[in-house]
């Protein structure tokens, strides 16, 4: 039972990190290697909010929207200044965003104490929920709830709002969407804002689980990309299933073997899966010829 619950929580954090990528990479084809640093920005936002609102019971709920907006704005600036010149050149976005990520890391190192900062968890996350005899840390339950809310809001937004429809139209066929009168520039910018903002939310969750420091983004970026790729590019449900599966696989391998071996085994599993099914779990059906 313990590995299943721990794994689900690990998967939820992975999902939070991957959700934004599934938008920017999945929907827009931008390989944003600075996504991990947007996550870091979210975590530092949580710390800064805690400096203003010292009661951690209140500061974490406040930090979530703040982190979303702050990380989103960083993403927006990146899109407007750099990314927009590079659509349809994914390799170039990869190189440029690696550089942006390094700049953001070094900036965080200069601004904040180099060993990182504490983000205190709210007292309502103290303790455990007993599930079939296993004391499940409430912090993990919170991560799962947060991921669920983000997924629900995101999918409802994509499905039911006109903006969501415009995003989906742009993803399916950019030229046709433009012909239909959709401003794809506006769509791109907003998508990037939301995708980066979600990284910020993931950062708040990550700050409650691990350290908040300049290097924290690095450990999430590669697994998050793998999850998006395994889930099927542009497919929210694929990302969800893949993140959960990887999280649970990690936890079970860690239970049976050691933490180091678990990382290796879980990602061998993903790579083997991608060899067998390169398009991922689900694929977008389009009528485009490319």
């Amino acid at each position: 039972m313990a590995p299943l619950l721990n794994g689900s929580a690990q998967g939820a954090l992975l999902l939070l990190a991957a959700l934004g990528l599934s938008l920017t990479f999945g929907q827009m084809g931008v390989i944003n290697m600075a996504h991990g640093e947007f996550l870091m920005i979210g975590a530092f936002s949580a710390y800064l909010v805690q400096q203003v609102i010292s009661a951690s019971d209140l500061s974490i709920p406040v930090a979530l929207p703040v982190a979303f907006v702050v990380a989103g704005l960083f993403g927006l600036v990146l899109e407007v200044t750099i990314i927009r010149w590079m659509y349809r050149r994914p390799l170039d976005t990869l190189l440029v965003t690696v550089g942006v990520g390094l700049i953001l890391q070094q900036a965080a190192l200069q601004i904040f104490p180099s060993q990182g900062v504490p983000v205190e968890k709210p007292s309502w996350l103290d303790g455990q929920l007993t599930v079939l005899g296993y004391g499940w840390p409430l912090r993990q339950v919170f991560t799962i709830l947060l991921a669920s809310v983000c997924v629900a809001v995101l999918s409802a937004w994509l499905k039911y709002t006109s903006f969501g429809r415009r995003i989906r139209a742009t993803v399916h066929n950019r030229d046709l969407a433009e012909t239909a009168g959709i401003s794809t520039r506006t769509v791109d910018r907003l998508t990037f804002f939301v995708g980066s903002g979600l990284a910020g939310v993931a950062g708040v969750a990550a700050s409650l689980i691990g350290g908040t420091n300049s290097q924290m983004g690095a450990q999430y970026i590669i697994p998050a990309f793998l999850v998006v790729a395994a889930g099927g590019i542009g497919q929210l449900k694929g990302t969800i299933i893949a993140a959960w599966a990887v999280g649970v696989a990690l936890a079970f391998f860690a239970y049976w073997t050691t933490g180091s071996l678990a990382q290796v085994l879980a990602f061998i599993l993903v790579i083997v899966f991608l060899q067998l099914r390169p398009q991922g779990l689900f694929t977008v059906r389009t009528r485009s010829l490319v």
Partner: protein
Amino acid sequence: MFSTSKRMRALVASSAAALLLAGCGARAGDDTAAAGSSAAASCVDTSGATIKLGFLNSLTGGMAISEKTVSNVLHMAADEINASGGILDKKIEYVQEDGATDWPTFAEKTEKLLTQDCVAAIFGGWTSSSRKAVKPVVEKLNGLFFYPVQYEGLESSPNIYYTGATTNQQIIPAMDFLASKGVKTLFLAGSDYVFPRTANAIIKLYAAKLGIKIVGEEYVPLDKDDWTSQVAKIAAAKPDFIFNTINGSSNVGFIKAYYDAGLTPAKTPIISVSIAEEEAPAMGHEVTGNYASWNYFQSLKTDTNPKFIESWKAYPNSSGVTSDPMEAAYISLYLYKSLVEAAGSFDVDKVNAAAKAKPITFDAPEGKVTLDGENHHISKPGHIGRINADNQFDIVWASDKFIEPDPYLEGYDWFPADIRKQLTDAAG
């Protein structure tokens, strides 16, 4: 089965390291040959009013988290020495290089500092990997390297001085402390690299001698923060104590998972060898009440400590707290000054001869340390501190005297020669 696979891994790692080192060594050797055989010795300029020293720390990349402070404290020590007249009446002119958390870069920069900047000695490094990258280069070029961090021991070099603890000055005192507390069962949690694996190999041998049972052993990669799955295993094993050899940010995740699992210092305390005054604040209140084994703590009451703390607090860009590795870095520069003054020369061979000739001492913030001229390590007091609410350490245990450095643990009968050889070979 388990130990065989570990040995295999060690074998692969060591042969990879050997290949890497062979590559660096060969390159350094070629350059020396091209520049003339005694290039390193003759290129240090001692004619002017200044002497050049090299500081080699990672100012960018993952290890900058820790090494920035070491670089800063070296600058402070250099400023202090210059203000009081310098070394042999020469002011220190330092060349700061960035190792960039990249081990080949450490080797390259060492070569650059010795052959192009012509520095008399180099100070820095943090990870064992960085030290092992520097080692063949300083040995080939006959340079000097001062290494300021506690490490896994089993090493000595005529060209390296170690001012941090070796295992018998940190790990063994920690075990003695546990034995004095009547600990019967111990769980080992570490990051997955050479220091925790070697430390744990030593801990297991000593635990057997002390009658402490090891009830589990877990490793997580250095760059992973999530310890939930492993902590669940620890909670199930219910050890009397946890021996923590985790390094870096991963410690924060470990402490959070520990706290969340309902483990407390009252029932299942942790003793750490990498959490100091610098690291504890990032863990908040959840680490309070646990223990750490170091030689130096900010809370130590010695004659020289108050001045050290005061100078550091006033120093620009200081973190405001002092800790063991930075104190060891501070010692390293002063120790070099004493060595050069005893030798009356900046020449490497004369400095090494001076180290052997008579005991070199320094009134360090941790107390009066003495250099061992043979193995190039220093004597240190063992201390165990308990983390209080201010993220400072209350000293709860001290070794009865300064512990002489014994990097190869030759004075410990429970440490068999074949294991020493095996671990030394595995560490490369």
